[in-house]
């Protein structure tokens, strides 16, 4: 004790506090500088270009300032694209929920080991390139594809069904891509539900379906909401699968943006569409985060 009291540093505590403060701000500078290389890249490749697109969205083809790029979006052709994009996104999300919820539920009820093994069915598609899977669906669904060949050989149909290059093919392909995005967060949140609650509900006299509806379902909602928001938002901006399986019959937002640039070279129109897409995406994620207390959309992969 006496040693501490005799320590010369105690005499000027203010001096020490200053040193600590300097040390603290130096620490903050060091830590900030570590994030710099990545942050600079993100600025160059993401933030700067989007800022530029935002700026361009207020100019017409010959460089005159205008709001035309935004007012144009009220025209029927654009409105149709928005409607069909939301239709496709909504339908794909709905099918994903109907197929994904039972899968996540059953997996969450099995032992960690069995579930981990069965998870391969969900994770292998996840690790397989979207392009490869889209190609596989084309091989399966086209006029001379496997499904039609089998159905004809089995005598179920006599002429090939139009399964692809239309809305149906697009939805099938997109559901295949999106399903893991729904199952994975949902499974994680269902795993976290303690089975004690279900036993307690049964003990209190609830029938199995009552226990499920009143106990399990509400507790799984935040995980479901995270998956739904993610899938819906990814669908809104999805390009590859609709472009290949839609056969030009399914107008999607992202394709409209791409066409505005590669076909018409109209940067203003493409930018405005992009800005609105970004805003809509942000709003949806924010609303879901607030409404369902979704902690984060991280860690899906």
């Amino acid at each position, binding site marked *: 004790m006496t040693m501490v009291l005799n320590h010369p540093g105690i005499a000027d505590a203010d001096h020490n506090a200053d040193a600590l403060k300097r040390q603290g701000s130096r620490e903050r500078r060091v830590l*900030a500088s570590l994030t710099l290389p990545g942050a600079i890249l993100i600025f160059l*490749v993401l933030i700067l270009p*989007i800022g530029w697109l935002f700026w361009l969205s207020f100019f017409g083809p010959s460089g005159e300032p205008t709001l035309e790029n935004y007012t144009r979006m009220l025209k029927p052709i654009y409105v149709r694209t928005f409607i069909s994009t939301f239709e496709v996104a909504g339908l794909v999300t709905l099918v994903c929920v109907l*197929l994904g919820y039972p899968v996540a539920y059953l997996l969450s009820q099995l032992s960690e080991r069995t579930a981990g093994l069965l998870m391969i069915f969900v994770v292998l598609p996840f690790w397989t390139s*979207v392009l490869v899977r889209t190609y596989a669906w084309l091989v399966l669904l086209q006029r001379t594809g496997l499904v039609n060949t089998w159905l004809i050989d089995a005598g179920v149909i006599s002429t090939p069904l139009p399964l692809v290059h239309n809305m149906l093919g697009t939805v099938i392909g997109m559901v295949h891509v999106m399903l893991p995005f729904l199952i994975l967060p949902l499974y994680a949140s269902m795993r976290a539900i303690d089975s004690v609650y279900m036993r307690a509900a049964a003990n209190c006299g609830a029938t*199995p379906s009552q226990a499920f509806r009143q106990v399990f379902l509400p507790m799984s909602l935040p995980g479901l909401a995270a998956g739904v928001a993610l899938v819906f938002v990814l669908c809104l901006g999805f390009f590859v699968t609709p472009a290949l399986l839609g056969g030009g019959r399914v107008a999607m937002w992202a394709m409209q943006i791409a066409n505005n640039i590669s076909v018409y070279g109209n940067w203003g129109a493409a930018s405005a569409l992009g800005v609105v897409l970004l805003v809509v995406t942000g709003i949806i994620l924010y609303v879901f985060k607030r409404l369902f207390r979704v902690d984060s959309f*991280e860690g899906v992969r």
Partner: protein
Amino acid sequence: MLHRPATETQITHFQRLWLYMLVALVFAFLIIPCLIVIPMSFSGSKYLEFPPRSWSLQWYEAYLGSSEWRAATFVSLRAALLTTIFATTFGTLAAYGISRAYGAASSLARGVFMLPMLVPLILVAIGCFLVYAKIGLNGTTTGLVMAHTVLALPFVVIAVLSGLASYDMNQERVAQSLGASRPWAFLTVTLPQIRLSVMSGALFAFVTSFDEVVIALFISGGQNATLTRLMFANIRDQIDPTVAAISSLLIGLSIILLVGSHLLRGREDRK
């Protein structure tokens, strides 16, 4: 067996047979498109068949014999390797900074590094195309690697942050108090202990770049066209069975990567 209770609420296996069947169907739906292309790619006839009536390696020969496909494969591999190096380095540094900092600065940085995951890809693609046109980066490996590195950063940051969360930072302070400089303490004490997280981040980075289509469609081209760009054009315009051979090879690659990531995660859990 079937009449034994399966849940806490005493539902029997028999009563939820429908659930097992539904889940089996969904699994089939998920897995069949991933696997069916493989046997078909060995078809000996002029068209793709299942099951193939005769077997051959003709589509693999067509792939390996085409200088265009070979060049594109090389471009994609090179971009993916470079992306892995940059994204893993920058992402690990950033995750370290974010995990040590606290308060508003830390959550702001975290938000910035998650952005690439949330912005629609098509927007990143046209934005890069626009900016790169002004600075001459369209059609270059540099431009492609920059864009792919940004896309991969969130995955690396998430992986490394989760590794750092279960690491006791005091060990690094001990090393520093024993005279190690800070970078040296990080390299010799911290990094070896979070290496599995860093490696799984690197794996994500590789896949993100190698499989990326939309950005590559806009900014890669000519000599530097990626494999995905070539495949996309090929699938859209004509269905060349060569793509079946390439797809099978890619599926093989994803199975290897999946097993790799599983092993990494398994070792992480055991720690």
